[in-house]
């Protein structure tokens, strides 16, 4: 349309209140400071540390993309993405006799079904998403441990070798992560599902009253999250040559940290997969920096905890200034 102008707001969506803008500035300077710290730290820009950075980021990043769908749908987070990752990895390993592609399809279907079941309960019964995901965590852990007797599952042969290679010179996990971000972002920005997801996350009642089907949209968000976790599970099982329940421990928490640090609203309806990618990278950079400076894992945990707390506080401040 010729009369459509592109106002500055569209190119650079800044909040309108002063406080909101200050908060954006804080984020901006935090990122600058981080980059400065990275440059000032000897050894950061070496190939080895960058590779380890990108590799760890890939697995967490995939789960974070999945978590983005859940957070956007207005359901805060799921504690069950980590065990979905683990069990998908186990299922993938166990299904390897079907061939690599067959095993991947089975694992994706399994992850989608696990999360989809939760999405069904949360969407159609309006059950509390946190509680449902915690119940699912206990349930899945219990079942999986019963079936595997707490042992890992290891593949026969070298079928998974193909997943340890490179595509266009990029390690497959990183490639898969970037592809999942692109696919997720396209789904969010350019499909009906994506638009509906923003509406449902923004205001469930309004979506219902407008004649949309919010329960189905929530179900879709959980299925998407399941697919992303399964992807991470497959990649990790391939990397560590076997699946066990330890694979995904703590990933839910890392994933929600990445989502929140990226700037997706905890209340839903606002955010993107690309933001989660940025969030995942910021956290990974922090971790590597701490590592290079000789801090222990405990300090890394502590730091992430502090960052997430600050981010949540900033978000709440920005929200209260919006009204």
């Amino acid at each position, binding site marked *: 349309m010729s009369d*459509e102008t592109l106002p500055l707001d569209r190119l650079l969506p800044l909040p309108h209140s002063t406080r909101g803008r200050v908060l954006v500035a804080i984020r901006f300077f935090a990122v600058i400071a981080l980059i400065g710290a990275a440059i000032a730290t000897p050894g950061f820009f070496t190939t080895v540390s960058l590779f380890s950075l990108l590799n760890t980021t890939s697995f967490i990043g995939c789960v974070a993309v999945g978590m983005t769908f859940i957070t956007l749908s207005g359901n805060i987070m799921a504690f069950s993405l980590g065990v979905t990752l683990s069990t998908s990895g186990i299922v993938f390993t166990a299904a390897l006799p079907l061939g690599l592609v067959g095993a991947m399809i089975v694992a994706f279907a399994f992850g989608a079904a696990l999360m989809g079941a939760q999405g069904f309960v949360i969407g159609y019964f309006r059950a509390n998403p946190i509680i449902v995901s915690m119940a699912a965590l206990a349930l899945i852990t219990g079942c999986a441990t019963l079936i595997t007797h707490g042992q890992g599952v290891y593949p026969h042969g070298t079928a998974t070798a193909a997943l340890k290679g490179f595509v266009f010179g990029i390690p497959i996990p990183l490639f898969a992560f970037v592809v999942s971000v692109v696919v997720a972002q396209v789904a969010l920005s350019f499909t009906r599902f994506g638009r509906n997801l923003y509406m449902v996350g923004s*205001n469930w009642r309004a979506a219902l*009253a407008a004649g949309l089907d919010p329960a189905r949209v929530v179900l879709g968000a959980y299925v998407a999250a399941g697919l992303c976790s399964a992807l991470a599970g497959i990649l990790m099982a391939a990397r560590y040559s076997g699946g066990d329940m330890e694979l995904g421990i703590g990933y839910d928490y890392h994933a929600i940290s990445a989502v929140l640090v990226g700037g997706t609203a905890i209340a839903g309806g606002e955010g993107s997969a690309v933001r989660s990618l940025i969030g995942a990278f910021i956290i990974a950079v922090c971790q590597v920096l701490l590592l290079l400076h000789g801090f222990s894992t405990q300090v890394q945990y502590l730091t992430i905890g502090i960052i997430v707390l600050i981010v949540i506080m900033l978000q709440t401040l920005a929200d209260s200034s919006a009204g």
Partner: protein
Amino acid sequence: MSIALDFVREETAEPRSGGIGGSIVTVRGIAKSFGPIAALEGVSLEIQPGEIRGVCGENGAGKSTLVKILTGVYRPDAGEISVGSVPVTIESPRHAQELGIALVAQELSLCPDLSVEDNIWLGSIRVPFLHKKRELRRRAAETLELLGAGHINLDAPVATLSMGERQLVEIARMLSRDARLLILDEPTATLTDVEIERIFAALRSVKREGRSVLYITHRLAELYAICDRVTVLRNGELVATRELAGLDRSLLIEMMLGRPSDEMYPEQAPTEGGALLTIEHLTLPGIVADFSMTARRGEIVCIAGQVGSGAAEIISALAGLVHDASGDFTVNGRRLKLGSPARTAQRGIMFVSGDRAAEGVFRRLSVLHNLVATRLPDHSLFGFLHTGALRAAAARLAGHVGIDRRRLAAQAEQLSGGNQQKLAFGRCVGRAANGVLLMNEPTRGIDVGARAEIYRLMRRFCEDGCALVMASSDLEEIVGVGDMVITLYRGNVVGRYRRSEVSMHRIVADITHPPVPAP
């Protein structure tokens, strides 16, 4: 112990500061800007002891900015405020309270699980460290008595009170803090007529005490009912302060709008279309018993009733939002099963909620998103959206409902109430040739100027063979806009009137009094 001393002094001495003739609060030349936008400019007013001062103006006129300055939420950029004859800088809401300026909150700030008495004293600086229980109780009872609310049990949890009673408790709470100026911002939006009358009675007692009230409202009738003088604001500027006695109503509207008031309610084209929506034996357990009606093409059917009468619930049920609704519904000759908003919408029945924030608009999403929310299937292929077509559709709809196209990218929550309602309306228009639009309180919280526009849109919607069914408790609106008015009292139909037969008196009588049992 200083707190306790304060308490005693307050008990013994009763200085009426300001004195006779002096004003309680004086505001001179107040200005406040947000960025480049001036919210208030050079506004002055003087409030006398024992005066009830109305403040009115369209949305965006600066009413709430004025309130926030008086209660210490905002600091003015220029101008001065005096309490009594002392110039003050109001630093915080707490400071405002200490100065005797108290806001009776719009969304009530009572704790529902605590008793009435506890709520009255909660957070009061007059409560000494060692509770003087009997003394406090006596004073709480006295305050309620003064407000004509002596029947409220001091020990009842606030959750058990009606909305009107809660408002009275809120007022009592402010009075017990020795407030000399009470500010009420749109206090009656959620109240029934009887409750409104109680609030008015309470305010009159406040006035007799020599304390003053600043009463902010959209409803002109309330200004005339309760206020002594009215201050009209427009675009952040003071238009005039006038005595209400003898002030011509249309002149008042003209002052608010800045132009002569056009016909508020559009002329209705005489249409005698066939039945489009038929409802028979609609029952909502515990709320509505056996409700039947027919909406014909081109017609606005208005279900009139007070809050709690079931009128709003009927509309929600028709939209599919009430699970246990039962009855027979026919749309355009075909039966419809209720209970699913999605199914209902597919049949061309769209719903505009009266509660915009909770279920009307997506406040965090853009205007564009909001306008095309339900039209995505029309502009997508295999689930992928045609974004250009969506933009074009949104621009067309914005033009249709009168929203500036340059605001398509703005967040819905930045729009005024009236514009948000237009958004919700725009989502529904032009969907189906035989569409039915359901509206709850179509103009709740919307100023006079935007109201007229909404009414025009409603009328235009009906011109293409569609029908509109709305629930309303606003008498002027019911009489002005309904082609067919059905009055409801406690879930039962009292009367049905065609436009020519309808009168305000009948409707008031119908919706406030129980129906006379048939002989």
